[in-house]
């Protein structure tokens, strides 16, 4: 019997190696796998490349990982979110690298990785500082920038409900980066509010089919992780 569930986030992050690229889901609190991040802090892997919309907040979760000096590079659209002090301090000291990507381009690069594409042309950023050094092309009279897929060695996401087959359902605005990220990594683990028996999720309510997911951990929501990760746009 297929069983993708694990008892703890600690078990879900054991394979993370030094230098790994990690896709970290969520936007603000909804969909952020806060306990996976705490488990990752304990696990110890370093020189990580983290892919996330922001830079986390304070010294917890992603902010904590950065604060601990475990992140070599951040790929993000909005790393200067209010409260993201650890990143900002390290960045100004030259101790962390930043690849700044417009939010829509970030989402599309991750999707392209999951969809097996070699790259795409987006209009966003053409003619701006963020297109410097990038290939551009005029297509049907409009200028586009070439962007490559963004693959992860690991993706960590948070969903609402899941079954042992790895099928995931998200509540409301939890889908955000989680849906594309769960498609774009070699190993995908989800922390979820609730594990349900196979068949309880309606086929129409599964937003991330189990084919994309390797491991699932039930993590009852902790109010702490609903507060600490707040970041601005």
């Amino acid at each position: 019997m297929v069983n993708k569930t694990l008892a703890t986030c600690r078990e879900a992050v054991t394979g993370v190696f030094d230098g790994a690229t990690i896709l970290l889901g969520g936007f603000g609190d909804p969909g952020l796998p806060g306990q996976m991040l705490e488990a990752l802090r304990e696990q110890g892997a370093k020189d990580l490349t983290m892919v996330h919309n922001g830079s986390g907040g304070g010294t917890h979760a992603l902010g904590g990982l950065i604060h601990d000096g475990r992140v070599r590079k951040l790929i993000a659209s909005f790393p200067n979110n209010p409260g993201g002090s650890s990143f900002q301090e390290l960045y100004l000291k030259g101790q962390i690298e930043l690849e700044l990507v417009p939010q829509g381009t970030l989402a599309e690069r991750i999707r392209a990785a999951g969809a097996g594409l070699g790259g795409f042309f987006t209009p966003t950023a053409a003619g701006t500082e963020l297109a410097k050094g990038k290939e551009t092309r005029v297509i049907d009279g409009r200028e586009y920038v070439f962007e490559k897929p963004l693959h992860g060695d690991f993706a960590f996401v948070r969903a609402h409900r899941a079954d042992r087959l790895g099928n995931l359902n998200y509540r409301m605005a939890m889908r955000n980066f989680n849906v594309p990220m769960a498609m774009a990594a070699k190993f995908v683990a989800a922390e979820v509010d609730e594990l349900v028996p196979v068949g309880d999720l309606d086929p129409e309510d599964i937003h991330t089919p189990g084919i994309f997911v390797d491991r699932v951990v039930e993590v009852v929501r902790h109010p702490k992780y609903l507060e600490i990760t707040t970041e601005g746009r």
Partner: protein
Amino acid sequence: MSLTREGIAYLVACDLPEGSYVNLGIGIPTLVSGFVPADREVFFHSENGILGMGPLAEPGHEDPDIINAGKQYVTLLPGASVFDHPTSFSMIRGGHINYAVLGALEVAANGDMANWRTPGEKVPGVGGAMDLAFGAQNVFVTMTHVTNKGKPKIVNKCSLPLTAPRCVKRIYTDMAVIDVTPEGLVLREFAPGLDPEAVQKLTEPPLRIAPDCKEMDIPAKFHAAQLTPR
């Protein structure tokens, strides 16, 4: 005389037609949704995957999984939908959003716009600003007419890094409503008590005066004694 921040937002709200799909940036734009007439259906989009966003959630009634792009707890109106980031930015980049209302630091006569890097900012962040500026059908800018130091924000050429070239359609400030057209900037309205000359004095590029240019018709509660600080 000039307008309050609310006054600027009010002017934008009046111009959003029934049935339009709108994304509001941070700052003055967030105030716009509060001034849409009650009998007019306008649909607000949030980058993080919401269409049909309502007002901020009442304290104590927040749904932890419903936030806007500014990470505030918001509500959903009947008919709202939720979706993932690729879909959300397809709406933006694919030209499905009718209006993006964005704050700006500078707008040039040709519609170039800068709003993502402030001069003193050492850590850059772009968020969804570029996608919106490149993708929305109409980019409306709301801003104070001049900087804290009294310098025009509507300039011949942007000095700050661009968010997008030639993207702005209309500018709403505390002094004026100005269209960006292929023939240059066109003054459409000026704040009560001002005149076109007063607006031109604080605007770097030359303004053409629209044939039907007029003083704004705006309730007194939106009038401000002085220019609104940024």
